[in-house]
């Protein structure tokens, strides 16, 4: 990264947001 203009995936923004939401809500993790 670090160019003045970069490229990312549209769908990745949705999947990352969904993954972070799932992380926030996850309760049953043993460690």
């Amino acid at each position, binding site marked *: *990264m*670090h*160019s*003045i*203009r*970069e*490229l*990312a*995936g*549209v*769908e*990745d*923004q*949705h*999947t*990352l*947001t*969904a*993954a*972070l*939401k*799932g*992380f*926030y*809500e*996850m*309760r049953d*993790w043993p*460690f």
Partner: protein
Amino acid sequence: MAKSIAPLLEFLDASPTPFHAVANVAARLRAAGYAAVDEGARWDEALPDKCYFTRNGSSLVAVALSPDRPPAEHGFRLVGGHTDSPCLRVKPNAITHNNGYAKLAVEVYGGALLNPWFDRGLGLAGRVTLQTAAGAIENRLINIDKPLAFIPSLAIHLDRDANENRSINKQKELPAVLCRVTKKAPDFERVLRAQLARQYRRLAVKTILAFELCLYDCQAAEVVGLKSEFIASARLDNLLSCHAGMEALLAARAKNNHILVLNDHEEVGSASASGADGPFLHSILMRLCGGEAPLAGALSRSMLVSADNAHGVHPNYAHKHEPNHQPLLNDGPVIKVNSNQRYATNSETAALFRQVCERAGLPFQTIVVRSDMACGSTIGPITAAASASEPPTSASRNSACTQSANSPAWKTNTR
């Protein structure tokens, strides 16, 4: 263009500096019912379940507590990102001139790829600290959203080796052209005063005391590609993660104690009062827990996802990637692994993030840098180390476990 990507594009365009990014996140949080809390307010005052703190106007910690989950017993779920991006920052004595041209003197902030800053319209934005006519000292954000500056390349006729051996002298070749000078150079303070008058009609400025201003690319964020599947924009690193973290926080059900931490100064090492290597997050968590002992208990039950960008494999430079780890755009979040702790991922946290993705039906990818190349880093290891509870030997299990989850993105140019 998919409708749901529009808020991200608007956020990217409206956040040319860390100050603007924090102001925009804060506005979104307030609209969702989060209360702004002054970090200097009395610690014995009860905090709302949903609130946020800012420091330096460029870092933010948002908090959403679950009423039935005391932090000391249940810990926190934290998502972290950074608000800053490499750029050109204006020097305090801003105007320089020679050969009939006035220029803006700049210094490079962070590890910027410099060639792409040439030959495009550059706007100017940031924070101005001023004294009002009434004597008050205030900060105001400004954004001159028009191409007022330009760094022209030297013509190929005057540099025949430009395509083979171009190097950039940061002092001599980066000052941005503002205008012709016929009689005297422009007064930069007058430029700032005029912009302040445009944005804040009732503001009476006595003295401009100081500023932190950045040049930025005026070209708006856009969806590109034959199938409209890519986003092209400035500051994707790391406003993508800031936006995703904010939306996730607002959408998450109150099953845990949720924290969103967005730090400034990641691109210059994070060692500052508002950076991830500073005391900001620790101070807020201490306040939420009510002391060192309950904080230690909370941290032993906490996890943090450090959300930053991963390098998607560039089809013209695929050899720069480790052959078995080549993330693709739109193939899902990337778990970043580095055994030398440039990323804080370990087997437990990688497994956790994998479980999160699988339960949500999401794809995921993994990246490791080539063994013969240096690895980048981000706030994950720094935040984990800075938040570690005593004893330090227990940091891998009994303090904030850290995970890197990232959207892959290409550099438009390699470095």
